[in-house]
């Protein structure tokens, strides 16, 4: 199963002009718990998917009441200046969608 099939919401957005934040929200509590228990999304996964060093990942948090995972990355270029490519950071989630989950 790929992450885009498992998640209900999978999105990216700026969290302030210098960070990009990725949200993965589940509908199925059981699926969320399995992803969390098995640690299927961790710093190593993100670092490989986005080809960035782990120290550019500033947060990676599971939040049970929202059945969600938040990953925050330091932006290479701040929002809306040269040579930024995505002012709102709204289209940086696609690599995460393709993540294969061994479930």
């Amino acid at each position: 199963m790929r992450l885009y099939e498992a998640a209900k919401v999978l999105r990216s957005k700026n969290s302030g002009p210098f960070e990009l934040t990725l949200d993965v929200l589940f509908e199925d509590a059981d699926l969320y718990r399995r992803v969390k228990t098995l640690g299927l999304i961790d710093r190593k996964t993100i670092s490989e998917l986005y080809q960035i060093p782990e120290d550019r990942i500033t947060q990676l948090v599971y939040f049970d009441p929202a059945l969600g995972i938040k990953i925050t990355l330091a932006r290479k270029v701040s929002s809306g200046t040269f040579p930024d490519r995505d002012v709102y950071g709204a289209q940086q989630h696609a690599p995460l969608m393709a993540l294969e989950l061994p479930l």
Partner: protein
Amino acid sequence: MNEDEFKILAPCGMLGYGFPESSFEEGMARRPDAIVVDAGSTDAGPHKLGAGTAIVSRQACKKDLEIILTHGVQAGIPILIGSAGGSGARVHVEWTRDIVREIVREHGWTGVKLAVIWADIPKEAVEKSLAAGRCEPLGIAVPALTPERLEATTRIVAQMGHEPIVQALEAGADMIICGRAYDPSPFAAPAIRRGFDAGLAYHMGKILECAALAAAPGTTKDCMLGTLRGDSFVVQPLSAARRCTSVSVAAHTFYEKDHPYILRGPGHVLHLGDCTFEERGDGSVEVRGSRLERTPTYKIKLEGAMHAAYRTFVVAGVRDPLLVSRIEEVERLVEAQVREYYGDVPADDYRIQFLNYGLNGVMGDLEPNRSPAHELGVVFEVAAKTQELANTVCATLRSTFLHYGYEGRKSTAGNLAFPFAPSDVPFGPVYAFSVYHLMEAADPLSWFPIEYEEVRA
């Protein structure tokens, strides 16, 4: 008014985005104690703050305000606007105040007490604060604020907490136009003033500042009602088409924040990790357990934008499969030829970027999939010290690219399909966020002076 409750009507997530009047009227029928709307964000980049422009049109802003003011004045409840005009600097606040005055005049209202809370921070204050070690960048990606960057900065604002807004309410303001504010502050202020818990008030503000975005289906273009109680608050959409669910409300704190349950604001940290979200069966959700902790030092977040360059860009298409397959290589060669031609211009005076849509235009280096589509949208841009230089270099870049004879080329008549004539678009100034810092503030009020006026027809 029920003293045990405090109700806030949030018309939309951004003043000027619009909202259904039927939802707004439904909200007014619940007899709210205040109408509060957010009007600013850093989301759209540094240009608004740097250039002093708005994010919505004047007409759209006026259309929303007309409805809000008409109902608010009639009901005699305070109306609060946060981060006026898109970025909350003086020019943005004045732009909003002008619209408010116009509406008051047109309706012939009298005795409307308007408060304006400024949020501009002088450069010298930031300079002093930096030198004293009382101002630090917010996060690892924020570059150091050098004297050159500060010099190039056109405007700096700070996000206010609830404190100056409470003061304006105490002074009897009917309408408050806030300069840059921490988004939840204008929502939290009127409730905190009435003695409600600050943790719950800020958490409710965090949800209401986006209006119905925390509902399902979510949108910033519809209204939401928040009801604050002794030890909980309830959020409720005002259109039959939406419902709040425990997950939709819990998940909202994810939105645009770096952490899902620890939210840092002016002078405080909001802890939401132990919150409960309970569906009440009527589309509303009751939230408990939001906890606010005051920080030992009161810090305010500064935002500043500097002029970075002037830009000229070209939009073109590439359909030739030979060129598509080696586009990046050809672009490097084209740039090298242009740089050689302008050998007399200092290399740092201009920068060139190619955005290859259909290959990695959206993600650049972060793109893991490197197989190109059958055609590419190519946007190339030159960012230079002056507009003239940007135009000059971009024109040469365009003609060089158009006719570049790469190895193995068969289409010797031209490499690019331009959708428009002329092809080159002089864009004007490009800004960058130069200040994104936390500054120690001796008290929550001193940086946010308040001005009162009685607006009359």
